[in-house]
C-alpha cells in the first residue's frame, strides 16, 4: 500500500536518510523505531511531501507521490499526524476537527465523521468549544489523531504519539491506534517508545543514522537482543 524505496534526504550538508526502503501493507500497523535523530520524522515528512527527497521513490496505492505537495498526498488518503501534535492552538476543538474535513465538500458527511470521532473520544466532545491549546498533552494527541480521522484516511503516518505522555495515557493512545487499525486503516507508527509501539504493531523496522538496521515481525523484534538492549532499556 505504501512503498518507500531507496529514499535519500539531504538537509543542506546533512544526509538524513540513506537509501531507506520500507513497506506498509493494507490493514497493517508497522512500527518505525530508532533513536533521536535517526531519521524517523524525516521519513514521514518525505512520504507526506513536507520535505523533498533527493533520491528514491514513495508510492502510495499505485500513485507515485515522491516530492508531491502535502495537500495532494492528504487528498489521496495518506495522512501525516506530525510530531508534537501541532493542534491549532487558538481554534476550538471543534474547529480543529472541522479542518480535518476541509477536502470534504459534503458538510453532512463532515458532521457525521466528527460525530464518529466524538463517539470514539468522548473527552473531545466535552471540550468541543475549548481552544485546542488549552487541552492536556494526551487530549491534544487525541485531537491530532481525531482531526486526521476526519480526513477519511486510508493510512495514517503517526509521529511519536506517545511523546511526553504519562504511561497510562500512552496506553490509551496505543489502544486508540489499535482500534482505528482494526476498522481498516493502515498505520505507520514512528516511536522512540519501542515497548508501546511493538505492543500493537504487526511488523517493525529499526533505523539508525538514516539506514535500516533491522526489520521483522513485532514479536521477533520484541525478543531480539539488539532491540532489547538499544531500545527497550535492557529489560
Amino acid at each position, binding site marked *: 500500500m505504501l512503498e518507500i524505496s531507496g529514499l535519500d534526504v539531504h538537509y543542506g550538508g546533512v544526509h538524513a536518510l540513506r537509501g531507506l526502503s520500507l513497506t506498509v501493507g493494507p490493514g497493517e500497523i508497522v512500527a518505525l523505531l530508532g533513536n533521536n535523530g535517526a531519521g524517523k520524522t524525516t521519513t514521514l515528512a518525505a512520504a507526506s511531501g513536507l520535505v523533498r527527497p533527493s533520491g528514491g521513490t514513495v508510492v502510495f496505492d499505485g500513485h507515485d507521490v515522491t516530492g508531491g505537495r*502535502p495537500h495532494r498526498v492528504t487528498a489521496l488518503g495518506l495522512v501525516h499526524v506530525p510530531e508534537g501534535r501541532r493542534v491549532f492552538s487558538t481554534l476550538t476543538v471543534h474547529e480543529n476537527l472541522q479542518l480535518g474535513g476541509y477536502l470534504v465538500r459534503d458538510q453532512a458527511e463532515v458532521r457525521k465523521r466528527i460525530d464518529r470521532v466524538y463517539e470514539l473520544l468522548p473527552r473531545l466532545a466535552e471540550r468541543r468549544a475549548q481552544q485546542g491549546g488549552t487541552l492536556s498533552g494526551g487530549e491534544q494527541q487525541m485531537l491530532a489523531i481525531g482531526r486526521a480521522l476526519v480526513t477519511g484516511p486510508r493510512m495514517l503516518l503517526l509521529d511519536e504519539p506517545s511523546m511526553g505522555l504519562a504511561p497510562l495515557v500512552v496506553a490509551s493512545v496505543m489502544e486508540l491506534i489499535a482500534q482505528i487499525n482494526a476498522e481498516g486503516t493502515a498505520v505507520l507508527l514512528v516511536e522512540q517508545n519501542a515497548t508501546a509501539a511493538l505492543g500493537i504493531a504487526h511488523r517493525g523496522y529499526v533505523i539508525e543514522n538514516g539506514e535500516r538496521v533491522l526489520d521483522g515481525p513485532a514479536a521477533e523484534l520484541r525478543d531480539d537482543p539488539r532491540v532489547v538492549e538499544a531500545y527497550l532499556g535492557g529489560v
Partner: protein
Amino acid sequence: MTQLIWNGLFVGSFYALVALGYSMVYGIIKLLNFAHGDLYMLGAFAGFAILGAVGGVSSSMALPVLLAVLVVTMAVTGLAGVALERIAYRPLRRAPRLSLLITAVGASFALEYGMRAAAGADPRVYPLRLGGSSLEVAGARLTLAQLVLVGVAVVLMIGLNLLVTRTREGRAMRAIALDPTTSSLMGIDVNAVISRTFFIGSALAGAAGVMAGAYYGKIDFLMGFLIGLKAFTAAVIGGIGNIPGTMLGGLVLGLLESFGTFWLGGEWRDVFAFGVLILFLTVRPTGLLGERVTERV
C-alpha cells in the same frame, strides 16, 4: 459633538476597510504589506479609468454607477494583489523577514511611480462626485453619499467577518495563520488560500479607493502612502491579524482624529494618528483585541 462623532465614524470606516487587508495579510503570512495603501490608490485610479471610459454620468445615476464601478474595481485590485503576492512575495516565503519587508517597500514604490508614469504626477479630478442632499440626525449633518459609503463599508466588513469566522475558507485562513505546515496536512492548498486572502484584502482596499475618490473628488499617485500608514495604525490599535479588532481600530482612529483635530487644529491630525501608533506599539503591541493565547504544552 454628534457631528464630530459622525465625521470620525465616516473616516474611520475607510480606515477600517483598508486596514482589514493589511491585517489579513499580516495574519496569514506575517508580512507588513507596505504596498497595501498603493492598492487603494490603484483602486481609485482604476475607478477613474472606468468612469472615464463610460463617459458622463448624470447625477441621478451617480449611486448605481458608483456601485457598479466599485465591483469592477474590486476585481481589478484583487487581481493586482494576487499578482503582487505571486511575483514579489511568494518567492521569498522562506527568506528572512527583513528581505520580505524591503521587498514590500520596493513594491510600494513600484506601484506609486508606475502609476505616476502611467497617469502623470498631477492630481486628477474624479469624474463622479457624491454631493447631494443632506439630512440632520441628532444634531449632525450627514450627506446621503456619506451614508451610502458607510453602508457599503459596513456590509463589506460584516461579509468579511462572516467569511472568516463561519466558513470553511475562513477556517483555513485562520489555520494557516497559526501553522501553514500542519494546514497543508489537512489537505489545504496553502498557496491558493494565501492568494485568495490577497484577493479579498486588495479588493477591499480598491473599494475604499473608489469611495475616497468619489467622496473627496481628487486622487493622485501618492494618495496611498498616508492611508497605508493610517491603516497600519488602525490595525495596530485593534490588534493586527484580528478582524473585529481591526475594524474597531479603524473606527477608533477615525474618532481620535476627528476629536483631536477639533481640539488641536487640523494640522495636528496626522501627528495625532502616529502618536497613537507609537503609544500602542510601546504600551500594548497586541492592540485592543489582540490575541491572548492560553497554551499548555
